[in-house]
């Protein structure tokens, strides 16, 4: 088992290096480096989205399609508040709050009505909530080019002759710290332990007296905060447009798939790789046009890889 893991890691590293070398062939280092750093930033956004999805899915069994919409609502609120001339930190906090509250509303009052349904149905229901949020947000803020700018855009550091803006650095660092932090949370705290127990066996956890409602609410809260942060960063780095932020959930799910909907570390690596490959494809004249397809192709390939040798068998449940 252990050997297999190292082989997988080795294979991944070789593949990534080969891809980067192939796409970056003949280009000056500075250009390649620029595309890699921008790819890492976008990839962190995918990873952040994926992490939020997985934390929630593991603890509650709900695959949440509405994270993007909650993030969009938060980002638009932040834009509105800075438009009114309030202090920037107020806007950021409002963004997180709006995303947190909307997600909690769903988790506490709607998701609980569906606790006994199949996973697919629960996922579909979150879609309904995403549509309501999206409709509401687009209704309040009619379509118009907007942008949001964080103070981190203006600071930056230079590494190896490359200038990296603070925001890009921030998302990469945040996604790495988040994976580390959530891991520690799951391993070291009581609530984290209970979340892992829920992920393992829900009916058994209920019998053991785990406060399911409380643990689930915390999971919804964490995913809401992550969604808000991701939405704000996405608005700054890519685009402030509700529809686009809402459906960012699709590449985020692609990132989550690379981690089999359970492994946060793999999601981080998967998300970052997707971002880098997508960005590097810009350098290829033939594949340039189809570069946003990268996350989906990668997710599909990873799924196929996980499937190898799998056989349809059953436990004695039936």
């Amino acid at each position, binding site marked *: 088992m252990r050997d297999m893991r190292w082989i997988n890691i080795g294979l991944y590293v070789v593949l990534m290096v080969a891809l980067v070398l192939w796409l970056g062939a003949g280009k000056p280092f500075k250009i390649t480096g620029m595309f890699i750093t921008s790819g890492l930033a976008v990839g962190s956004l995918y990873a952040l989205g994926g992490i939020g999805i997985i934390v929630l899915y593991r603890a509650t069994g709900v695959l949440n399609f509405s994270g993007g919409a909650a993030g969009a609502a938060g980002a638009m609120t932040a834009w509105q508040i800075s438009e009114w001339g309030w202090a920037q930190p107020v806007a950021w906090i409002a963004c997180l709050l709006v995303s947190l509250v909307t997600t909690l509303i769903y988790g506490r009052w709607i998701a609980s009505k569906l606790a006994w349904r199949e996973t697919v149905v629960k996922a579909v229901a979150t879609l309904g909530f995403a549509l309501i949020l999206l409709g509401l947000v687009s209704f309040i803020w009619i379509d118009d080019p907007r942008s949001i700018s964080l103070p981190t855009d203006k600071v930056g550091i230079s590494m190896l002759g490359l200038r990296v803006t603070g925001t890009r650095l921030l998302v990469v660092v945040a996604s790495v710290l988040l994976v580390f932090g959530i891991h520690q949370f799951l391993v070291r705290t009581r609530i984290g332990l209970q979340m892992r127990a829920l992920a393992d066996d829900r009916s058994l956890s209920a019998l053991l007296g785990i406060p399911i409602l409380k643990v689930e609410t915390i999971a919804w809260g964490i995913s809401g905060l992550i969604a808000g942060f991701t939405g704000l960063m996405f608005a700054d780095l890519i685009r402030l447009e509700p529809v686009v932020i809402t459906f960012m959930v699709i590449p985020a799910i692609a990132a989550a798939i690379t981690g089999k909907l359970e492994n946060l570390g793999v999601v981080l690596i998967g998300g970052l790789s997707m971002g880098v490959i997508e960005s590097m494809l810009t350098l290829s004249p033939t594949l340039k046009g189809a570069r946003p397809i990268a996350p989906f192709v990668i997710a599909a390939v990873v799924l196929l890889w996980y499937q190898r040798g799998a056989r349809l*068998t*059953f436990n*004695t449940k*039936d």
Partner: protein
Amino acid sequence: MIEIQSILVRFGGVIALNSVSAQFSKDVSGIIGPNGAGKTTLMNVISGFVSCKSGSVVVDGQNLLNLSPHRRAQWGLRRSFQKEQIADDLSVFENVLVQLDFRMGQTRENALEVEKMLDAVGMSEHANRLGAELSGYERRLTDVARCMVGSPRLIMLDEPAGGLSVDETHQLGNHITNIPQITGGQVLVIDHDVELISDICKETLVLDFGKRIAFGKTAEVLADPKVKSAYLGTEEVSA
């Protein structure tokens, strides 16, 4: 003739079946044992839902373990589940007919055979009712009729009397005893209801903790002190 040769099944570190062997030669045979003894696991190995580490299952000269589950069914293996598997939105007739659908182009023969077997279990007047409208006993009978069509060679019934009244269990027992002469197939009944087994099975295998602890004529097996202490003993405590 059903020959089970040293079947070994592991789930993680747990040994679910520890080289179990038995040769069933009678029309209707039984497998009994307390909960968790490995009865259903053995049935799952035979029908292909659980793969075993080693061993073989040979029925009428065919090694079943080489076939995929649906191929086994097409070869002539039938099984019922602890919970009867009747589709709610199909009629009784269709619920039985689905077993014959792999024989394509024989619409008439298939329909006739379904009617014959529904008649044998006394369900022919309900043929057009939907699965959702049936009582528990009627669902069981439909399940049994489904196991009888298509010239089966081996029919395995997993706790067929689960949830039935004493009366219904008795009637079902009669239907089961008739299966071999109607279909020509051999029947294997799994249950922990000792009464049903001793009524209808001529020979019986007793499992406990994944091991064979007795095998032979039902009356002799049930009189075995080892069986009494392992199985009947626990029954008395829990009763």
